């Protein structure tokens, strides 16, 4: 990642966050460049949300966070001239109606893009007169996406952005809506449990576990560096020789993600998907991604 140092718009240096004695983030060093879609993957409680909140100055922290030339020590409204954020919980004000929510953000945020908002509103089917508190979880998520993606900002932080959405809208969000927002000058950092949905979208990926960054790499580089090796189960020891973090068994076959340079005669080789890559680096089971 170092080769694009001049383009980095977000940088953290030894970023740590403690909750009492519990270390939620430990010495996180990240450089996030512009014009990238970056996935942040981790198990529950790995530190994804804490990292995002530190990047925004919502949480006091140790170490440094820089957005461009600006050091973020604590809450600073100027950060949001360049960054928009969707939290992992539906954080809308349930006392407002849909229309009041939209009008409020339009009024307070000079980055509001009315044309894009109208386009998103048209496909969202949100009832303007409904109180937010009366909306379903999926509708609330849609509304939060609408007001956030209607902002012309350089950096978009999405913490589990599609929680509660139905499959059709999730697909539309990742395939179409996010594309409306993204261009070469913008960066999107997405944390999600649905690794398979963002897989084709991501250009970089960050794996986080127990508050530590285990991997930060270009997707292409990662996928060419690692691959899935499959052998009949009776030849499993040949795979285990390479000490894979994760071994899976299916229909008499044993598979593991191994370095692409590993060459076992008679084995079949497949491109690893994101979930495989995550589990091979972090360890654990499929359910935890």
């Amino acid at each position, binding site marked *: 990642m170092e080769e694009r140092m001049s383009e980095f718009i977000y940088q953290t240096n030894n970023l740590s966050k403690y909750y009492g004695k519990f270390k939620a983030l430990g010495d996180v060093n990240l450089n996030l460049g512009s014009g990238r879609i970056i996935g942040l993957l981790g198990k529950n409680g790995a530190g994804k949300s804490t990292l995002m*909140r530190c990047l*925004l100055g*919502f*949480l*006091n922290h140790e170490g440094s966070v820089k957005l461009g030339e600006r050091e973020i020590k*604590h*809450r600073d*409204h*100027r*950060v*949001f*001239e360049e960054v*928009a*954020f969707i*939290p992992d*919980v*539906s*954080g*809308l*004000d*349930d*006392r*407002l109606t849909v229309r*009041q929510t939209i*009008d*409020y*953000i*339009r*009024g*307070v*945020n*000079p*980055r509001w893009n009315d044309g894009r908002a109208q386009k998103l509103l048209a496909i969202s089917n949100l009832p303007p007169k409904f109180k937010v508190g009366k909306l379903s979880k999926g509708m609330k998520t849609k509304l*939060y996406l609408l007001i956030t993606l209607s902002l012309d900002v350089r950096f978009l932080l999405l913490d589990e952005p599609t929680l509660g959405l139905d499959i059709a809208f999730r697909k539309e969000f990742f395939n179409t809506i996010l594309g409306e927002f993204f261009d070469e000058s913008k960066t999107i950092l997405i944390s999600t449990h649905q690794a398979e949905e963002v897989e084709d979208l991501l250009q970089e990926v960050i794996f986080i576990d127990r508050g530590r960054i285990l991997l930060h790499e270009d997707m292409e580089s990662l996928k060419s560096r690692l691959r899935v090796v499959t052998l009949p189960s009776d030849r499993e020891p040949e795979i285990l020789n390479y000490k894979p973090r994760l071994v899976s068994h299916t229909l008499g076959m044993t598979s593991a993600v191994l370095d692409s340079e590993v060459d076992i005669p008679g084995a079949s080789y497949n491109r690893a998907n994101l979930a495989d890559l995550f589990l091979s680096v972090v360890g654990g089971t499929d359910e935890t991604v």
Partner: protein
Amino acid sequence: MKQCKALLKKEWDTNWAGVLIPLWITGGVYVTALIGWIISLIRGHDLGALMQVSGMPAGYDAFMLYGTAAAITTLLGFVSLLSAAGLADSVINGGFKRRCEILHFSQPVSFLKIAGSKFLLVSLAVIPLFGVLSLLNAVVITAVGRQMFSGEFHYGLTGWLQSFVGGSLTILFVGSLAWLFAGVFKRKSFLMGLLVLLAIEVVIGVLNYTTGWRIPSLFEFLGRMVALKVEIDPSVGVLEAPDVQAVISRGWDTILSWTSALKLALSAVFTVAGAWLYKFRELS
């Protein structure tokens, strides 16, 4: 300007019910009185049947108009004060309780504007409403009172004005104190703040008892600060007709006293301290 307008509108949209509590209560009183009057009419009585004053010594008319308007304004002031205290918690902690603080703090709006719009609602929305409603009440009660007392109308208005100014200072003081508590405590802030004050009072009591330091009582001090009424010397007019001009003069002296200046100064300190604590809160 656009941001301020949007913030104020949002605060109104989310807290209007709390702001209008004095209106609901005043409306309730009027409706109740109206129903009573209608029932009275149905039974064949006139308005005078509801209001009969007898045995009033001479010279009390002006004082009664003044005192009634002042008392009714003070009552509404108390309701407005509770409304302001509730609003202080709602504007500061409403976002936290509804898990939407992040939405509001994820906008490029300076903290001064955010805190300013919230404080405006706590103070400057409650106080004008208190003013308008209490003036209406004072006009009505004075007009009705003049059916029984022969005093001039302006005595009622003076009673209203003095109680309104004094009450507004108290609303500002209590609203600011509640604002400070809301900045410290995210849940049940007013109750928690009172518990802290109670704990301090107990410590003062223990220290005074064990050391004889005679530290002044905190509650006694706060009691003086939150006194809603203008001070009227109880000896005035007990045995003879009161000098209403003297009462009015004393009322202005009370309003334009160092106590009022102290109320304003402490309100400013509480407001700044509460805002400062709110500003440096973590959002999780």
